[in-house]
């Protein structure tokens, strides 16, 4: 029997209430860093347990130690980045936008300890999770560089070093998220590709990338130039419209496609049948051994129960389709 339809998730899991409370107490100086770190480990263990129980193939650590995917790295690059003031992102939502204040350089491992801890809890592979250089720079202010290109390429060297550390620690899969990659495709897509090449250079891991909502059509098929093994897109959110792109221009034969089958912005769990339908329509264009089944995006905006329910549906649907097609997981 052939293999195929591997399951994984995009990265973040909902933070348990006790951790959300502890994070706010920590920011107010009411509890110490060690106490917070212990709770982050406790929550990470729960995330690993949930994924094993649901039956996913490749696990994530859940990002219990991260707030914002850019600020988490910016805080640890303290010699060249700072956390700036509040900027509105939409409606009444604000975030602290980081500032590049000096020449970017890697100061020490940022993600390895938590990855190692998560991997120690399971026999299944746990993905290393990194934010891509283009997104890191695009979502930061820049008080230092004169060009975005210089900033992105230096950031790529930083993220590369982190990937090297993950490889050394034993990671087999590393996901590099680039949700900002389609912000200005005509101008900058070559730069994003060049930066990704620097990140992955010489590293013997399987690299995945997650490209979020937005003008995906503008960067397809250009995105196939990204030197990664797997590209993940949010199919469910657009009712599998992206399949039309694949019809017009086939997906790269050397690459895997990560298919988002769960809408992470909807409280209600999908039905098994609806997920199966999405998988089947994808399989009309792609062989199962090159298709991964995942949620559309990180699950952190859902409750724990909603996330668990959605993942159970996803795994059930994959099992049924595998059985129907006679393929192994």
């Amino acid at each position: 029997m052939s293999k195929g339809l591997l399951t994984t998730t995009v990265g973040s899991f909902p933070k348990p209430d006790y951790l959300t409370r502890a994070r706010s107490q920590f920011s107010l100086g009411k509890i110490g860093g060690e106490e917070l770190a212990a709770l982050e480990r406790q929550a990470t263990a729960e995330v690993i347990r949930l994924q094993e129980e649901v039956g996913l193939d490749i696990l994530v650590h859940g990002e219990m130690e991260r707030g914002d995917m850019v600020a988490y790295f910016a805080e640890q690059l303290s010699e060249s980045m700072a956390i700036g003031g509040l900027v509105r992102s939409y409606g009444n939502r604000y975030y602290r936008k980081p500032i590049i204040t000096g020449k970017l350089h890697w100061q020490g491992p940022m993600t390895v300890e938590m990855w190692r801890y998560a991997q120690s809890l399971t026999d299944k592979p746990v993905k290393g999770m990194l934010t891509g250089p283009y997104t890191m720079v695009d979502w930061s202010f820049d008080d230092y560089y004169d060009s975005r290109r210089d900033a992105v390429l230096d950031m790529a060297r930083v993220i590369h070093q982190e990937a090297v550390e993950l490889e050394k620690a034993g990671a087999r899969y590393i996901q590099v998220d680039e949700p900002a990659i389609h912000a200005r495709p005509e101008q900058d897509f070559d730069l994003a590709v060049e930066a990704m090449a620097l990140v992955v250079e010489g590293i013997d891991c399987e690299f995945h990338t997650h490209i979020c909502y937005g003008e995906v059509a503008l960067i397809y098929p250009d995105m196939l130039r990204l030197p990664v093994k797997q590209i993940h897109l949010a199919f469910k959110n657009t009712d599998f419209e992206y399949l039309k792109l694949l019809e017009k221009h086939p997906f790269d034969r050397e690459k895997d496609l990560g298919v988002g089958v769960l809408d992470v912005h909807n409280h209600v769990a999908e039905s098994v049948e609806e997920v199966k339908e999405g998988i089947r329509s994808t399989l009309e264009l792609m062989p199962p051994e090159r298709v991964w089944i995942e949620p559309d995006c990180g699950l952190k905006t859902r409750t724990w129960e909603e996330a668990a329910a959605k993942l159970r549906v996803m795994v059930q649907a994959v099992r049924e389709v595998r059985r129907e097609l006679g393929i192994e997981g």
Partner: protein
Amino acid sequence: MLTTVVGSYPKIPNRPRPARLRAAIARFERGEIGEDELRRVEDEVTIEVIQEQVEAGIDIVSDGQIRWEDDQTYFARRMDGFTIDGLIRYFDTNTYYRQPVVTGAVQWREPIAGEDYRFAAAHSPRPVKALVTGPYTLAALSANEHYGSYGELVLALARELRQEVLALEKAGAPIIQVSEPAILKRKEDFPLFRQALEQMMEGVAVEAHLYTWFGDAEGLFPQILELPFSTIGLDFVMGPANYEIIGRAPFAKKLGLGIVDARNTRLETVEQIVDRIRRVSHAVPLEALYVNPSCGLEYVPREVAEAKLKRMAEGVRRAQEVLG
């Protein structure tokens, strides 16, 4: 040479100053305060940001668009023919807005920004510029599910927004800025753009400015000088080619000179500001310049916006001495 702003100003300051508007909106959304209380906070914050602009040395201020969620929905929510859909990215920023969807004939019902203008003017020692999102940009950033063509929608919006321009004129606004960043992304639409703006500004006597941002005027120059506005605002930060472009034909209008980067925290030096003014002085005399940030200031933290405006005013004073 006068200093002005392009529109938005950061709605909340950083600690230790309280984020009053953010807290008020959150309380309003939870049903803890009523609309009157929310309006009162918006009023107070509007007065506060006008004062900040004045203290920074801005000659023509705006109300900071404190009551606006964004340039699009502020109008779309108050006109007939629109519904409001999900979040979508505003150009290449990391700022999102809810996309207006045109589901019926668009229609202006009543003055949209008139009361806001009156309030701001009553609380400002300096002239207040009123802002209208242009028909081309409002159409470009909305989804059209009603009109047979994009052009029809643009012209319908021009006809309806003309009522808003007339209402602002009647309310006493000394300057009305029409904001049209989207034309820079589809320059081939200039004939439609011209037709729409000519219709919209027909019979309007008040001083009107046309502002663009996030790019250069390559392909629009010098035709853009033929439009019925006394001032053309250009972004020289994201559109550095504008320095060269404006020299290609006599610049027979005033220039809105966007030379302070409103999307980045790095503070310009006085010398840089003087130098950027010098670079356009061959094409446009100093007395025909409005110096302003490259776009609305909401992309930077409040304290950065304040510092940038102060620095800009300082640069303009120095340029007056050096070049005047």
